[in-house]
């Protein structure tokens, strides 16, 4: 026991004391903070600047102008030079009243902004009798000048504004060039066409579209969460981020320890310090000591990041989203997950002689344990569904799935919590027993790295 603790203490201090560990522990949260804070700011939902032509074929004869204006207005919001052109066009329609032609005003305004090459978006209204197929062909024709490329063709139905006998209105079709940014279609072209059509239909029956919009708009209230500590805005995001955060925490903590265990074991083998150690301690003492030592490393990571998470929640006054029992369960599932992973890592680490030899054996393990990550959305949205419930009792997934469920909004039935812990403990016993067998044989094996079946054979050997 004494020797096991000695091994554990050395394992812990020599891991935590390295510069690499310090950097990893500090850098990682920094990256996370930067990621959460900066990346959303960098990713915009705005459609990119558009260059090229959009053709509109309007058999109703009443919508083309409205559509053109709508498209250019929306493109202007994306802020490119064509935005300036659109503004110039607005200016043009403004000056119309003063006797100048829109075309003249547009030319003036274009002159204002045309400093450089001035890429632009142009809307071309084509006559009714245009052959659609010819226009469509332009969508895949290559043009040397990108601003001349046809981006989309909008073809309105002749009955877009007139209902048939059943009260059904016609609609329109949009044809786009391959690789056109989907946001241009969804956020620029279609809203503009939709608005033009609905506005015209409302006007046809004597309604003021502007008033209709005001009448149908209701500002959605923010729900208030009422707790003993007071009231706060409810946060749907917290309900998704909390379980995900707990899963990440469990992952990072258990794999940090596990990964270190793998590398230190391989190092002891390749350094040939293993046999010296084995003359002082038994393989079991060594393995248990190493696993316990790295458990300390995992716990340290869990505590550090967990504390940061709790501080974060409290600072957003979301502290009540997390209960002590959830933290307790997180710890319990960490221990189960860690011992499962550590057993596998110890077994693999003892069996190979070089880190790269471990990859082929660790790969499948990682894949299996990754699965809960992939299904995390499904589990969070339906934490008591069949998938979640069943996976809670399948050993390698169990702790990861349970952490997601525990963090999610719906309470998990108590028997499932107890059951998953029981399954977890049993699997830990089996895994560490098997690992001890592999470890005992593996630590002194050099040469050809064993495959999975060899490891199984070692487990079965007395």
């Amino acid at each position, binding site marked *: 026991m*004494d*020797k096991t603790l*000695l*091994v554990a203490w*050395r394992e812990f201090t*020599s891991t935590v004391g*390295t510069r690499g560990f310090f950097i990893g522990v500090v850098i990682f949260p920094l990256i996370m903070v930067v990621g959460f804070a900066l990346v959303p700011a960098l990713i915009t939902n705005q459609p990119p600047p558009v260059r090229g032509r959009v053709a509109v074929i309007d058999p109703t004869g009443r919508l083309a102008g409205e559509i053109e204006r709508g498209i250019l207005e929306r493109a202007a919001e994306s802020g490119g030079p064509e935005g300036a052109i659109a503004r110039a066009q607005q200016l043009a329609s403004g000056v119309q009243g003063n006797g100048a032609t829109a075309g003249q005003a547009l030319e003036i305004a274009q002159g204002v902004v045309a400093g450089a090459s001035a890429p632009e978006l142009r809307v071309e209204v084509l006559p009714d009798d245009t052959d659609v197929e010819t226009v469509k062909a332009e969508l895949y024709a290559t043009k040397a000048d990108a601003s001349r490329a046809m981006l989309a063709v909008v073809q309105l139905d002749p009955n877009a504004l007139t209902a048939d006998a059943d009260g059904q209105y016609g609609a329109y079709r949009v044809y786009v060039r391959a690789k056109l940014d989907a946001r241009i279609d969804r956020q620029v072209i279609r809203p503009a066409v939709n608005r033009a059509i609905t506005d015209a239909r409302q006007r046809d029956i004597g309604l003021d579209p502007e008033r209709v919009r005001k009448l149908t708009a209701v500002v959605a209230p923010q729900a208030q969460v009422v707790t003993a500590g007071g009231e706060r805005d409810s946060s749907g995001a917290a309900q998704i981020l909390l379980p995900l955060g707990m899963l990440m925490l469990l992952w990072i903590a258990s794999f940090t320890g596990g990964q270190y265990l793998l590398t230190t074991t391989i*190092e*002891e083998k390749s*350094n*040939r*310090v*293993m*046999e*010296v*150690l*084995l*003359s*002082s*301690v*038994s393989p079991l003492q060594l393995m248990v000591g190493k696993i316990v030592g790295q458990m300390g490393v995992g716990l340290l990571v869990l505590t550090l990041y967990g504390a940061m998470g709790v501080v974060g929640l409290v600072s957003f006054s979301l502290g009540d989203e997390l209960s002590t029992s959830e933290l307790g369960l997180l710890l319990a599932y960490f221990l189960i997950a860690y011992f499962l992973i550590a057993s596998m890592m110890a077994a693999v680490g003892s069996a190979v002689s070089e880190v790269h030899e471990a990859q082929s054996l660790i790969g499948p393990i990682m894949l299996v344990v990754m699965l809960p990550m992939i299904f995390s959305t499904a589990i969070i949205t339906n934490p008591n569904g069949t998938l979640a419930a069943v996976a809670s009792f399948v050993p390698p997934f169990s702790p990861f799935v349970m952490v997601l469920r525990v963090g999610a909004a719906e309470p998990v039935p108590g028997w499932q919590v107890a059951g998953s812990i029981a399954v977890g403990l049993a699997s830990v016993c089996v895994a560490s027993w098997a690992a001890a067998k592999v470890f005992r044989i593996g630590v*002194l094996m050099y040469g050809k790295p064993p495959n999975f079946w060899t490891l199984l054979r070692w487990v079965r050997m007395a």
Partner: protein
Amino acid sequence: MTQAISISGVTKTFGAKVAVRDLDLEVPLGRTTAFLGPNGAGKTTTIRMIMSIIFPDRGRIKVLGRASAVESKDRIGYLPEERGVYRKMRVASFLEYMARLKGVPRRGLKGRVGQWLDRVALTSVARKKCQELSKGMQQKVQFVAAVIHEPDLIILDEPFSGLDPVNARLMRQLFHELRGQGRTLIFSTHVMQHAEELCDHVVMINRGRKVLDDSLAGIRERFDPRALEVEGVEGVPSRELAERLRKLPGVGSAEAASGHVRVRWSGAGSRQVMAEIVGAEAVRRVEIARPKLEDIFIDTVIREGGMDHDGADLSRLRASLQDEGGTPEGAEAVEVRRG
């Protein structure tokens, strides 16, 4: 308890290969034993079984009176053949850790480590990381790690390999000291001079079987070549000298070897023959040939090997060694070559 190690009927196989076969071995307390054998003979396997790092398929091993080394690990010092250090650990911390693993109390440990580092002239590197040390330095650190807990039984697998002459001498001194303190030492080596200089007893194994287990004196007696070595003065070819010596009374045979003539006497005693030789010839050296462990080793391996399929290879090896003139010759080996 008088036996440090007691092995009876031990067999160990790895797959189809029998590493150790029906080995019996008794090592009394306080004896220094050289453990010899060619590569792959089963030395390391035997030592690992003594250390309870691996376990025999059959047979019984008692170490320091206990059923296995597991129970007496703290009283055994072990320097494995495959030895290493924690590369990132500092030398003193490494030794402290190894000592603590052997049950040395924390109190006074730093002083003890300091003394030992001083003893092997490594005080200046105590604070350095093990990876900064040269191979020879690392080996001294490993040796200290094996003896720092003052064990009763010390097992050293190839302790001299990789040491320069200065460090090899230091190691021999430490060896003599440990012997003088009455500790039981077992060491394996390929360097026969070390075995001859350092041990009281020789155990040789070949192909997993014990082929020799005797004291050094007993071996010298048993393998006495009963021959003289005569070295002529400069300018006289050994061939010529042998020719002339053959004619002397009492000389049974005289054969030229590299740099000397090997003379066997017939009937009369060695003293008379020596007197005859000294009387008749100008010689640099006349002495009674001593059995060399190296010869015994190689002869035994060849004899053993001769029974097996690859014996021919060993004979060829022996022949090539002789051609190079690098190895002293043994009469029996010459016979094997003729056969």
